[in-house]
């Protein structure tokens, strides 16, 4: 091995890796982040096409709270990274909605709107809903949760109106469930808080300024970031992780390795033996998405649509499964980035629509069939999405579409599983000493969640050497 030993090596320059890197560099560790892609951000990155910048992930930064709010996840995150709330330049949402045929529930960054909407639409469920809210308020986010409890089952104990159960599950599944047909109860509690009690915002200018801020901070603190440098293998001996081997054969030594590549993906890097013993292929994530972004010559508001995000479903039952066909257009998410209360309005009108997609079906297509399938999938998605919003096609200047294969190509997530494995590793431990999991497969998702994941695992295992 080379003699340049690092305190910590981090695999992946996504949200979790960057946040962990800043934490450790802040306390003078010698930290190296290795990223195989040529851009940072992972699932929350950006790219340029025909002179326009597109965000990959980011519909909404969840967990939004105003400046000065005490004890909230976003406040903790800012404090840990020594960032100011103002640095993020967050534009809050107007309002969003859960839309099923004939019933809508609006919500905003003020919980009272959601509460009153539920009371109005489901007058027989007021007490039940309030009991649920109280239960969630009291939920202890910091005690080790039981990961096998189904939110669907718990909700049925509280709420007797099936439609309300489905309507509550829809946005929470879409914004963070790695489990088919359901959400883990502890995730439900975290997500409910982050979507309804707190809320949505968008950094002015999208994800890039936030990423720039993180990259700059990491560099100022002396952290080292190497792009286009994939980790091929995790080097270990006698149950202890010693470092990593790069694609070109170089070995780098470290006291601690944090991996945001995912559980199965990380175990694969340790070799067949640990992979075979510790990866249950049933648990590799099955849920992936297809998203199309339309650039329009009008803003959504000019077309009569002022909702920020719509979680739609075209029947009374919400079916959150890997579809049997290329996509499942029956439900999805529509995001209009123009409908945040930004200081500087966006130049173009934007319309993004996401639905569930099946990785295997996309994988087996020939290149020509792939392009054709994209076109048809968008048509199908808009058939259901347009009635819940509007049809962006007459105003289209440009469009771009990404599929489960795109997610896999740019983030290395097996099967393009955006929310990772169905079983999370909340303690961040692996079978190897000094190797820990951060980000998606540790269990905290989304921009805010994955950053907190990187921070808390770095604090626990990498900051204070055992």
């Amino acid at each position: 091995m080379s003699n340049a030993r690092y305190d910590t090596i981090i695999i992946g320059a996504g949200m979790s890796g960057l946040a962990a890197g800043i934490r450790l560099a802040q306390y003078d560790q010698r930290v190296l982040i290795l990223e195989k892609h040529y851009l940072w951000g992972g699932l929350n990155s950006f790219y340029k096409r025909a002179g326009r910048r597109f965000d990959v992930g980011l519909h909404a930064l969840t967990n939004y709270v105003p400046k000065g709010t005490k004890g909230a996840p976003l406040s903790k995150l800012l404090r840990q990274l020594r960032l100011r709330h103002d640095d993020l330049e967050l534009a809050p949402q107007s309002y969003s909605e859960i839309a099923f045929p004939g019933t809508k529930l609006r919500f905003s960054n003020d919980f009272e709107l959601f509460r009153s909407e539920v009371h109005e639409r489901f007058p027989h469920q007021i007490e039940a809903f309030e009991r649920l809210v109280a239960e969630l308020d009291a939920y202890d986010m910091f005690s080790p949760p039981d990961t096998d409890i189904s939110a669907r089952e718990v909700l049925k104990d509280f709420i007797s109106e099936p439609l309300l159960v489905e309507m509550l599950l829809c946005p929470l599944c879409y914004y963070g469930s790695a489990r088919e047909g359901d959400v883990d109860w502890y995730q439900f509690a975290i997500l409910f808080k982050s979507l309804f009690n707190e809320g949505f915002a968008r950094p002015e200018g999208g994800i890039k300024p936030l990423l720039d801020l993180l990259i700059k901070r990491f560099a100022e603190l002396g952290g080292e970031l190497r792009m286009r440098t994939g980790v091929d293998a995790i080097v270990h001996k006698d149950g202890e992780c010693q470092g990593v081997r790069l694609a070109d054969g170089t070995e780098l030594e470290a006291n601690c390795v944090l991996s945001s590549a995912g559980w199965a993906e990380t175990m694969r890097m340790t070799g067949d033996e640990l992979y075979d013993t510790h990866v249950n292929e049933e648990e590799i994530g099955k849920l992936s998405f297809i998203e199309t972004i339309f650039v329009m010559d009008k803003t959504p508001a000019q077309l009569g649509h002022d909702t920020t995000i719509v979680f739609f479903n075209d029947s009374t039952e919400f079916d959150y499964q890997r579809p049997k066909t290329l996509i499942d257009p029956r439900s999805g998410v529509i995001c209009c980035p123009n409908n945040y209360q930004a200081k500087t309005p966006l130049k173009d009108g934007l319309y993004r629509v996401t639905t569930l997609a099946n990785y295997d079906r996309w994988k087996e297509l020939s290149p020509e069939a792939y392009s054709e399938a994209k076109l048809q999938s968008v048509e199908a998605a808009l058939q259901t999405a347009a009635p819940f919003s509007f049809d962006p096609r007459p105003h289209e200047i440009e469009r771009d579409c990404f599929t489960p294969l795109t997610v896999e190509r740019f983030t290395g997530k097996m099967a393009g599983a955006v929310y990772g494995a169905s079983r999370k590793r909340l303690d961040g431990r692996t079978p190897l000493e000094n190797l820990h999991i951060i980000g998606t497969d540790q269990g905290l998702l989304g921009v805010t969640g994955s950053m907190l994941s990187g921070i808390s695992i770095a604090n626990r295992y990498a900051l204070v050497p055992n």
Partner: protein
Amino acid sequence: MTRDEIILAVKDIITTIAPDEDLDGLNNTDPLRDQIELDSMDFLDIVMELRKRYGVQVPEEEYGVLNTLDGCADYLLPKLEGQELKMVNA
């Protein structure tokens, strides 16, 4: 450092960690957690800053002694003997 300087040093560290908190009214005897918003992540940062600025190690079992400003002063007085106060947020 004197006791008073140690209390200044700790307050300066808290200012770095929690710039939005108002530290003017802090007393030395009540738990810090009761007076301002500090969680276990923040206490870890106090320990880390002490190590970074003054090279003092506080083992995890002893974090409890940092609960109050008086506690900090008692605990750190022998450890910081002969060291100069370093104010980052002057």
